[in-house]
């Protein structure tokens, strides 16, 4: 950021709650059906149809609110947000306004600026405020350009999908703080299993309010809203672009107009969508079709006690408990199942470092190549742990382990099975190794001479020969020591 300036950023995140049916009717929320297949009189907004609240959506919202340290209001009110749009079938969206589902949370997360290459510079713990998280319904989709240049189409399959809108305080001072916060939200919502968190598919959507002011100034600058950014990286870039644009505008004597802008990832810039003059007056009022949403202390208590350890807490615990770096701990806790897997391997192997290394370097690569997630991995945490134990107790060599790992990944067989079947047990019997070494020395007099005349690099040749004869099962350390002794 330019000297002497400060950016003030607030974020509104819309998270689709992963319920099986819509929020106010029984229609399926399954993605990818024929247009308008998942609809009924309620989500089509037909005359006379009425909404009935899906308690599953409330439960998901409750878990999310608790995971974000929000206070759940024992009574909240659904309100109508009135505006006309073809993909809004009732002419209003059922949302919440002055009495939201949950309010007043603070989250403490690790965040860092990034250098030119995108590498974190220094991780620090910071607190950010969440103003509120309220429940609302999603709209449908307008579809253009499918055959008719002059016609648009409306698909209401998405209309009525439950959303949680999470509104932050204007607490972010840089695009990377915003990035780390949204990433944190995504991980947290995935951890408590209320949102799939896929920004590209639109089940997590983000709007940013950005303003700038001179460092030390009390008053906030005029804010600009950036809407509908569909990836975390674009969000970060859009905010950076907007901060720069605003500072340049002010420094060159202009002023910022309050407006809504969109990010173009093709042009790498934001552009005006609408100015304040065409801003909607949404005429919010309590929805008379829905009674106030009431939740009991017992309900909140039950949800709360069912929550898993949350990703931020887990990341910090893993760092401390297993002496992991921020990056390693972040990757391992990026998904609840992966973190569970890691801890499973640690328990089975008793070697947290090796467990982290195998997962981070080998397992994740194989999963990526196979395009599957950790939940579909054929190596169980117990088996990977058992394999690490086999290395640690000298039963197999590190080299053998790599081959073993590949086979385990492909077949799901246990390490003991494969070691047994293929006779991979490492030869640690020095008598046996000595015998092979003696034969090798006897069979290669020229190389022995070379070694003894100073070409010590020939040691590699002898190790290779011994390994070849033993099928790679000889303990390499023992081979080295005996060779050196015998070759003098």
């Amino acid at each position, binding site marked *: 950021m330019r000297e002497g300036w400060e950016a003030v950023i607030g974020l509104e995140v819309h998270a689709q709650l992963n319920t099986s049916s819509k929020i106010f009717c029984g229609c399926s929320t399954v993605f990818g059906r024929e247009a308008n297949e998942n609809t009924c*009189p309620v989500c*089509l*907004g*037909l*005359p*006379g*149809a*009425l*909404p*009935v*609240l899906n308690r599953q959506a409330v439960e998901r919202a409750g878990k999310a609110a608790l995971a974000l340290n929000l206070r759940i209001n024992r009574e909240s009110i659904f309100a*109508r947000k*009135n505006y*006309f749009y*073809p993909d809004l*079938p*009732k*002419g*209003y969206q059922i949302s919440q306004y002055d009495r939201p589902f949950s309010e007043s949370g603070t989250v403490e997360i690790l965040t860092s600026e990034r250098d030119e290459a995108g590498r974190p510079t220094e991780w620090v713990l910071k607190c950010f405020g969440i103003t509120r998280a309220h429940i609302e319904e999603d709209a449908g989709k307008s579809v253009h350009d499918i055959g008719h240049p002059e016609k648009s189409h*409306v698909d209401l399959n998405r209309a009525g999908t439950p959303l949680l809108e999470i509104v932050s305080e204007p607490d972010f001072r840089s695009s990377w703080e915003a990035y780390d916060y949204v990433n944190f939200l995504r991980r947290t919502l995935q951890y408590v299993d209320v949102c799939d968190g896929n920004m590209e598919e639109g089940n997590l959507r983000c709007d940013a309010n950005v303003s700038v002011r001179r460092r030390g100034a009390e008053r906030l600058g005029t804010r600009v809203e950036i809407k509908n950014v569909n990836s975390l990286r674009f969000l970060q870039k859009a905010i950076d672009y907007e901060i720069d644009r605003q500072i340049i505008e002010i420094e060159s004597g202009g002023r910022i107009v309050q407006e809504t802008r969109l990010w173009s990832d093709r042009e790498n810039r934001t552009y005006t969508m609408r100015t304040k003059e065409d801003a909607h*007056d949404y*005429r*919010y*009022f309590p929805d*008379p*079709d*829905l*009674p106030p949403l009431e939740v009991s202390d017992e309900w909140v208590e039950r949800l709360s006690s069912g929550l898993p350890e949350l990703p931020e807490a887990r990341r910090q615990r893993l760092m401390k408990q297993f002496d992991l770096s921020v990056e390693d701990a972040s990757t391992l806790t990026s998904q609840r199942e992966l973190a569970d897997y890691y801890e499973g391997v640690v328990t089975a192997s008793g070697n947290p470092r090796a467990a982290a290394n195998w997962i981070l370097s080998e397992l994740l690569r194989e999963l990526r190549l196979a395009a599957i997630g950790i939940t579909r991995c054929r190596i169980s945490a117990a088996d990977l742990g058992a394999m690490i134990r086999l290395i640690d107790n000298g039963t197999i060599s590190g080299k053998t382990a790599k081959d073993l790992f590949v086979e385990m990944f492909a077949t799901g067989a246990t390490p003991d099975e494969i070691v047994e079947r293929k006779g991979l047990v490492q030869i640690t019997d020095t008598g046996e190794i000595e015998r092979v070494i003696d034969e090798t020395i006897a069979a290669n007099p020229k190389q022995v001479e070379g070694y003894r005349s100073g070409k010590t690099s020939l040691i590699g040749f002898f190790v290779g020969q011994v390994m070849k004869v033993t099928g790679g099962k000889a303990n390499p350390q023992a081979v080295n020591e005996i060779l050196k002794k015998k070759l003098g």
Partner: protein
Amino acid sequence: MIVRERLTIDQIHSMYASGETTPSEVCRQTLERIDAGNGRLNALLCVTRESALARAAAMDAGIGEAITRKPLAGIPVVVKDNLCTAGIPTTCGSRMLEHYLPPYTATAVRRLLDAGAVLVGKANLDEYAMGGSTENSAFGPARNPWNEDYVPGGSSGGSAVAVAAGFVPVSLGSDTGGSIRQPASFCGLVGLKPTYGRVSRYGLVAFASSLDQIGPFSWNVRDSARVLGVIAGHDPHDSTSAAEPVGDYLSGLDGDLRGVRIGIPAECFAEGLDDEVRAAVESGIARLTARGAEIVEVSLPHMKYVIAVYYIIATAEASSNLARFDGVRYGFRADQARTLSELYRRTRDLGFGDEVKRRIMLGTFVLSSGYYDAYYEKAQRVRSMLVDDFAAAFAKCDAIITPTAPTPPFRIGEKSDHPLALYLGDIYTVTINLAGLPAINLPCGMSASGLPIGMQLIGNHFDEARLLRIASAAEQL
């Protein structure tokens, strides 16, 4: 005057029991009466001739047994045309929905059909139930069978006329601010608006969601009680429908009034009340005391605000409820629109009538930023005070009597240019919707020009059983 013999459900059922007639025969006679009278009265917008005859015919064989199980077996009915009926036009009296066919049936109508009723048609109404005369229908006004130059009241005018003209013994209307009780009063019928939440609103095209209720028209209290018993009760499709158990509305209907305390609010007998109406209602009250009722004075201090409060809340909700009629998915769409906003403007300009537009504009205004607190918010506060007024009144009495409308029926066209005068005519009825209470219109006299006058009997929340007992005793006179 073409007011016919007063058909009742019991009469028809006793003829079925004795084998004197059959559902087919009753249905044919019903259709004949409709053919003879509807051209002039314009009570029905649609007659479901074939489906009615087929359904009736299917009942002929087992009708003797059916009447012991199904409270409305073989009874021809009509419902207001803002109640959705699958595959049958549901126009709301609007150009906007002139050709609209709903894919589903309203819960109240479904329950009528399940109880054996035969739907013979859909009744005329003020467009989207907005009005008190049925003159605001896009398909022409309905006429009062007692005198065809007069309005039948509204907005459920067609449903009232269908009973008053002898087409059917019972019908369904909807009541947001008096739309059942006032036409019942103008047509000399019993008309019941149940407690808010007593009857499911699912499939009733919403005017003002916090005020709308569905209810019956009939010649006597007993038939309305029977229909209420059929349509009342919780519906999982309507979150505002009450879990409160449905009472036995038919038992004890012929008792007397000893020990019953009737509250009379002085505020409802003050200025603005027509002398003929006052005299008729007072004679009605006198007849109640003659049967043993005790009169107590009660007070409704916030009565003077009710018209303002009602027209703020009802129009606010309506402005939002009617937003869905935008020409995008169903109903009327203006052609030749070049932009999206032009599509909306032209569709709504051509599709809605004047009164509907007036209320949408009013409602949009009172919800606008900067005006919300002064209008909508304040209206809600007064509304809760009104609820408190009634709670205090019901601590002293079992039912309250007021006039239903401040004047007898008026001539068609007489008030068309005076929307405010029409609004003022709703004073006694809108109060009840704001408080969510049940109320029933009972005929209590005739005007000098030979038109009916009614009085309104108001009960406590979900106290329909008692309200109907008192009403029934009152009508024995």
